[in-house]
């Protein structure tokens, strides 16, 4: 009786809340474009100002680059936190990995995965993609290694210290380009004009490709570290 009463109260409260929300969101004005035409402005002058064909990348790493910096700093902090909570001193107990066929096949595929991730990162300003997406693909290599070859293999190849170093280098690249913006253009994280080349080529769009690389390193190494910390934990519990 008591338990049912609690459930019913919760359901009633939720339904009432839902009705209240519905009534309220009915009042929302129809979507009439954004106040000062922010999106129009970007579409009009995004290419000429940033030199980036991919306008989303232009917004992420140029117009609101500071927010992206904050976001990637949150990833950085989260990785440090997870390592702080989950890390253990011992070497992880390795699983033996999958069969010979899978191991061979992966050996052949791996360079192509790496190439694809590098492509996604470096062409972030030309085609869909960018640092965050490419970094995740990069981290996938490390994750597949752990599954297919067993976790100790990945540990020996790329130690956590090396991954942390990669991550830190990525973070410093982003921040360093921001500081360079102050000295060369007068604004923090301002696009570096002297790097701009002909639109559509690989080395165009000022500092955007370089920021992309920094973010790619950071996200890739960060996700690999997170995955790695979690493996250690599960293996310890299984024993």
């Amino acid at each position, binding site marked *: 009786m008591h338990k049912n009463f609690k459930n019913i109260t919760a359901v009633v409260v939720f339904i009432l809340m839902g009705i209240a929300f519905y009534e309220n969101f009915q009042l929302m004005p129809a979507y009439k474009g954004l106040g000062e035409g922010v999106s129009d402005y970007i579409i009009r002058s995004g290419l000429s100002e940033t030199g980036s064909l991919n306008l989303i990348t232009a917004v992420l790493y140029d*117009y609101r680059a500071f927010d992206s910096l904050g976001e990637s700093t949150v990833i950085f902090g989260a990785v440090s936190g997870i390592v702080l909570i989950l890390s253990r001193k011992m070497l992880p107990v390795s699983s033996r990995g999958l069969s010979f066929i899978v191991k061979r096949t992966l050996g052949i595929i791996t360079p192509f995965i790496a190439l694809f991730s590098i492509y996604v990162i470096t062409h972030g300003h030309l085609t869909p993609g960018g640092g965050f997406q490419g970094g995740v693909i990069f981290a996938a290599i490390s994750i597949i290694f752990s599954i297919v070859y067993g976790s100790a293999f990945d540990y020996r190849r790329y130690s956590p210290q090396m991954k942390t170093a990669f991550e830190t280098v990525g973070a410093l690249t982003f921040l360093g380009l921001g500081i360079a913006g102050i000295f060369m253009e007068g604004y923090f994280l301002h696009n570096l004009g002297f790097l701009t080349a002909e639109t559509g080529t690989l080395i165009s769009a000022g500092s955007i490709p370089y920021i992309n690389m920094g973010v790619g390193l950071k996200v890739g190494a960060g996700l690999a570290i997170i995955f790695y910390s979690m493996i250690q934990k599960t293996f310890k519990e299984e024993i």
Partner: protein
Amino acid sequence: MMSWMNIELNLLILLPAFSAPIILILDRINEKLRKIFVILSASLSLYFVTALFFANFTDIKKGSFFLQYTFDYFGGPFIINFSMDNLSLFFSLLISMAVFLIIIYSTSYIKYNKAKYYALFFLVAASIQGSVLTADLFTMYLFIEGITVFTTPLISFKKTEKTTEAAMQYLYYGIIGGVFFFISIILIYFNLGTLKIAETALGFSEISGPMQLTIIIFFLLSLIIKLGIFPIHFWLPKAHSACPAPVSALLSGVLLKVYLYIFMRIFWTMISFDYLIELHISTFIMDLALVSSLLGHIFALQEDDFKKMLAYSSIGHIGMILAVLMLNNQAAFYGAMLHIAAHLMMKSGLFLSSGYLLRTAGSHHIDELEGIGHKNRITFGAFVIICLGTIGMPPLLGFVSKWYILLAFLKGKHFFAALVTVLGSLIALFYYLRYISKAYAEVSPELKSASWSADFAELLHFLKGDQLMSTIVYVFTLLIIFFGFSFQYFDMPVNTAIIELLNPQKYIDLVLGG
């Protein structure tokens, strides 16, 4: 637009943010180098804010102080904007001071995992500065999320089951609070098409009535969760007691004040306070805060855990500050601002001294305190003085601020509120006395400190080893005593900050004017 305009604002955020990865690198190279860098970076942060304060002293006094920094292409409509007026400066100064002292304390308190600890601590410091300086709603949301994400691992620093549970609860409630904040931001963006605080302030009256109510309620819900006001307060004592002492001091002493600042920014500068009065929300919040204040003190009375008791007492004080802010007049703001400064120093001091006194104890239970007053005579004396300040004994800063709050309540004819303030002090007297009497319980002579002269001789080595921790506690104690006698020094910054609160138009004009 000048390109070098007030670039120092950036520095306040970037310096700690930059320090975090550098600390991780330096730790790999040399531990001593890392330690020096930590202290250097913390003192530089403090130096920049104080330098800003003294360089612009005449402007601040006149009330015309305003710095801002914008990222944009010339004439482009999207601006990420940092701005610093007297209100932000007041908070920025207090926070930098407290963070500096807490970091110095940490250098001798934290014994393992140091590099990760400092990296996260500096990231929290950067997020705090950022959320105080930003003039853009989305960036503010980002920094608030940053604070939540970065403090969570610090709470579970000891890696026991209890701390992990507290950290997870803190994370859940922090994220839920953040989501509510985000809903309000989305609603504002859809209605006005802007994220700037100043533009939102101008356009807020154009939004339809029910929508205004929704936006206000979501902001309120979010901040009530973050501040730990009564119905959603239960995560706070757990989180604030589970972490190492310096992190408790940061959470209870500094972060709660940051959320109070955000509360002021949103409900005075961005959404005019008249809306809250019109919708009868202000009286509701005031009652809620008062109940929360009373309950916080009562819960503290029955708590046997030393740090949980301090955390419940924080709930009591924050409730009182929030209630007095709701009066919305000059006298009330004066009391509230003064108590924000006082509570920041007192609670940081209390948590830090708890860390020093219980550094060898296994738990924070009241029995662990037995005889500790004989063992650490001088440090415990400082602890007692800070306790008296929190209760509101005359020559100390806590008395001054409580006195002005009481006067503001009486002037506004809110007798229940005045009663809660006085009752809170009375209850506080009892629960602190419980612990103090336990600490002075009679113990066998070998547990006592040898002699007074030996104690004073130890003071000479004030920077060595564990003694550094008690030195920081003494610094907080001296600050409380000093400002208790000469609280007039707070007059100028507090009064100019209040002018900002009462005239949001100035902020709006200056931000939009470029």
